[in-house]
């Protein structure tokens, strides 16, 4: 694949990379670094993409792999609560209540184990259990069990922190 075709592809699917960066890094600088790393790894891996899966599946796989495998400065696990983190600015015309709910959801997902974050991100982006099993490398049955457990965890986290 040539560079301009690749850039077109990444440009069209960059939301995926942004979402993965938000889930796996806390500060804007770390997210920017991870974004670059993911684009670089995608460029290196693009020749292995032969269209057996969708482009989104391929990008998600490389993005999650890169986010998980790269080392970063260790903080204390869950030591900084999501309510303490500076949220990204919502669009100007967005209802503040909805913007806050979005932040709460992201915050709750970020409190999950890294492996669970990957699964729930794929579920929320409406990938099928089969696609998720192919990206992660586990059985569809395993995906189903995990998803229901993760959803319960998120509900508990939201209830414990916000009571809704």
């Amino acid at each position, binding site marked *: 694949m040539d560079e301009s075709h690749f*850039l077109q592809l990444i440009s069209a699917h*960059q939301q995926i990379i942004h979402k993965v960066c938000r889930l796996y890094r806390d500060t804007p600088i770390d997210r920017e670094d991870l974004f670059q790393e993911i684009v670089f790894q995608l460029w*290196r891996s693009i020749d292995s993409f032969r269209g057996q899966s969708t482009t989104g599946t391929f990008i998600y796989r490389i993005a999650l792999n890169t986010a998980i495998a790269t080392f970063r400065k260790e903080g204390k696990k869950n030591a900084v609560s999501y309510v303490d983190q500076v949220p990204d600015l919502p669009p100007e015309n967005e209802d503040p209540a909805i913007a806050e709910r979005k932040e709460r959801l992201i915050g709750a997902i970020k409190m999950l184990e890294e492996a669970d974050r990957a699964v729930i991100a794929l579920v929320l982006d409406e990938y099928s259990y089969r696609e998720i099993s*192919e990206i992660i*490398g586990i059985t569809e049955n395993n995906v189903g069990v995990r998803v229901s457990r993760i959803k319960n965890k998120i509900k508990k986290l939201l209830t414990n922190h916000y009571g809704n």
Partner: protein
Amino acid sequence: MKNLWAGQPTEEKQKEALALMLTEKSHPILKNIRKQLLLEISSWLVILCVYYSMFDGQMRPWIANGVFIMSMVQAIAFNISGYLVARNLIHGDNLVTSLSGYLISLKRFKWTSLFSRMIFMGGMLFFFLYGLDMDIRRVLAVGFIVVVSAGQLWFLHSQWSLKIDKLTSLQTNLVDTNNR
């Protein structure tokens, strides 16, 4: 939940900015590794060029000179291989397989790193101590150097083990349905 997830605020990147990310030159992590690599390799090359006259290489036998040069060259080769490991994060068609492959290469790299450091330290000691009369003060000094070097090796080992253990537990977590 899906609606809230779909509407996450993101900053759109232009193609020009994306194009810059394809080169190793602008890579945030590799750029720093490359700088450090260049600095270390150039210092070692300078030492290799001047050691013969500066450290009395001409007064030592060929075996001591050979060990000195080999210790330096293997350290340079090891640094380059470290750069290549940092570049290659993707090792398979799914997350579990890829992490397994990456873990294998990290474990191999950890042991190579420890052996390379030992060879380097051993080589330096061999070169500088070759033919020296060992009185008690020298023996104590060498003992001190060995203890400090062993401490460094232990630190290096524990740093690598921490990283590897973290990834191993993440990989186990991905496969295990029964966790918490």
